[in-house]
Structure formats: C-alpha cells, structure tokens
C-alpha cells in the first residue's frame, strides 16, 4: 500500500479537497449495468412514483461510491481504505433532464488512530440535504 499522504502530516481537523459529482439518468443506467442492481426505482419514473418516491432515485451504493472518492483521490491508493460505512438518510432524486443531480462531498480527519490509520468523516449533500449519515472511512496513511 502506498498512500501519498503521510500520517505525520495530518491532524484532527485536516480537510480533504471537496468534490462535486454529477449524476444523470444515463449515469444510473450505466451504474445499474455495472453493479447488477436493476431495481426499477433507479430508472423507471412511473414505477418510482407508484412506490411513493418523488422521482427516479440514485442507487445508494452509487452515492456511497462517489463519496469515498474524496478519500481515494486524496490518498492516491484506493487499497489504503480499510473501513468504510454509511447510512442512507435521504435518496438523491435524479430528474430527467440534462443537468440531473449533483452530490457534493467534503471530508475531514476526525480521529488519528493506531497503526498509521485515521478516521475521515464525510459529508455528502444533494439539493441542500444531507444524503449520507454517519459516513466514515478509516484509511491507512504512509
């Protein structure tokens, strides 16, 4: 494992570079194919509304995959992530237009742990609402 961030160079409160990720209906179709999750709530507006959703929603696992990129882009080596957990608090509604939705992710070092690892707490927002709760990753630094 070759993280490009050194444990000694970070402290509690160190902020990771924030990122914004776009998601359109086309993104969801592509993710459905790659992940094998073909639940129609992620591509069929009629179905989504019939089950009480505001619109087609992004896969929670898609949002989870985007959020960790703030950590993996920071450390360089995605294999440095040893633990990663989230709570799916709000669905990300994805309108059928050219813009789609955006997911804004920020993160900061919350705890310095043993064995060169740190806990990073992530915040993921979409349309002004927190879409992931308790979003935490433990990552091994150099």
């Amino acid at each position, binding site marked *: 494992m070759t993280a490009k961030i050194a444990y000694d160079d970070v402290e509690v409160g160190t902020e990771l570079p924030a990122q914004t990720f776009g998601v359109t209906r086309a993104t969801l179709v*592509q993710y459905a*194919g790659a992940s094998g999750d073909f639940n129609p709530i992620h591509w069929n507006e009629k179905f989504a509304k019939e089950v009480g959703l505001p619109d087609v929603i992004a896969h929670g*696992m898609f949002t989870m*995959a985007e959020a960790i990129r703030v950590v993996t882009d920071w450390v360089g080596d995605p294999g440095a*992530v040893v633990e*990663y957990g989230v709570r*799916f608090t709000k669905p990300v509604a994805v309108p059928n237009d050219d813009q789609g939705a955006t997911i804004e992710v920020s993160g900061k070092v919350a705890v310095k742990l043993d064995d060169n690892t740190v806990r990073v707490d992530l915040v993921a927002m979409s349309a002004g609402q927190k879409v992931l709760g308790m979003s935490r990753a433990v990552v091994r630094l150099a």
Partner: protein
Amino acid sequence: MALDQSFVGRSYPPTDPYEVGREKIREFAEAVGDPNPAYTDPDAAKALGHPDVIAPPTFVFAITFKAAGQVIQDPQLGLDYSRVVHGDQKFVHRRPVRAGDRLTVTSTIEAIKSMAGNDILDIRGEVRDEAGEHVVTAWTKLVSRAAEEA
C-alpha cells in the same frame, strides 16, 4: 408481521466462487466515473504494491448483495422484498479485492429488529478468497417498511 427472531445467528452456505475480472472492474470504475489508474492499469496498481488491478472499495457489494439474496428470498424468513430499502452499509477490508480473485461469500443474519412496524435485518457477508483467507466483511442493513393500513 414481525420476523422470526429464531433466524438470528443463522448462516447460509458459502456461495459458488465469483471470479473478479479486470474488465468488470474497469466497467464499474467507468460507471462511477473514477479515473484512478489502480482500477484499470496493472502497472499503476503494481506501483502501489498490488499484484494486479484492484477494485473500488464498494465494488464487492455487487457480490455480497447477490449472496444476501439467499437470506432475502428465504421463504421461511418471509421478508417482503418489495418494501425493502437499504438502510446502512459498511465494509471492513483486510485487503482490496483484485482481479483474479475467486471470492465466496458466507451470509449470516446478525440481527432482526422490529420498530414501528418496520422489520430491520442486519446481514453480515464474509468474503474469502480461494485460499480461504478473509478479504472483506460487508454489513448490510435492510429495512422492510411497514405495510400501509388496508
């Protein structure tokens, strides 16, 4: 109807091996728009100390969730899947998943709770490689929402 507590602790037989392919990892990385070369370029992955390209941290869910289907579709458990939403997800990696891995998953029901008519099911998926070594554990919380009053 609340789920039967006697299912807590029940483990299901290990799944048949899932062979992780380089092109499947590439397809997943493209689907999440992630250009990290560790996912697509074996030399870049080797420069980081990995024997082959590695998968993004959430890739393994496709395998563990399919394995959890044994639990979800167990007719004796009787979960109403049409009302299920994904509540929480957590992964603990001993090492990253990589191309060439042949992975089996053993699913265990870790907890069953009933709150306000919702059934909450915690499934632990232990992922092992061909040598039997632990690779990653996935915890999946599923919430089956209470049916509306007729």
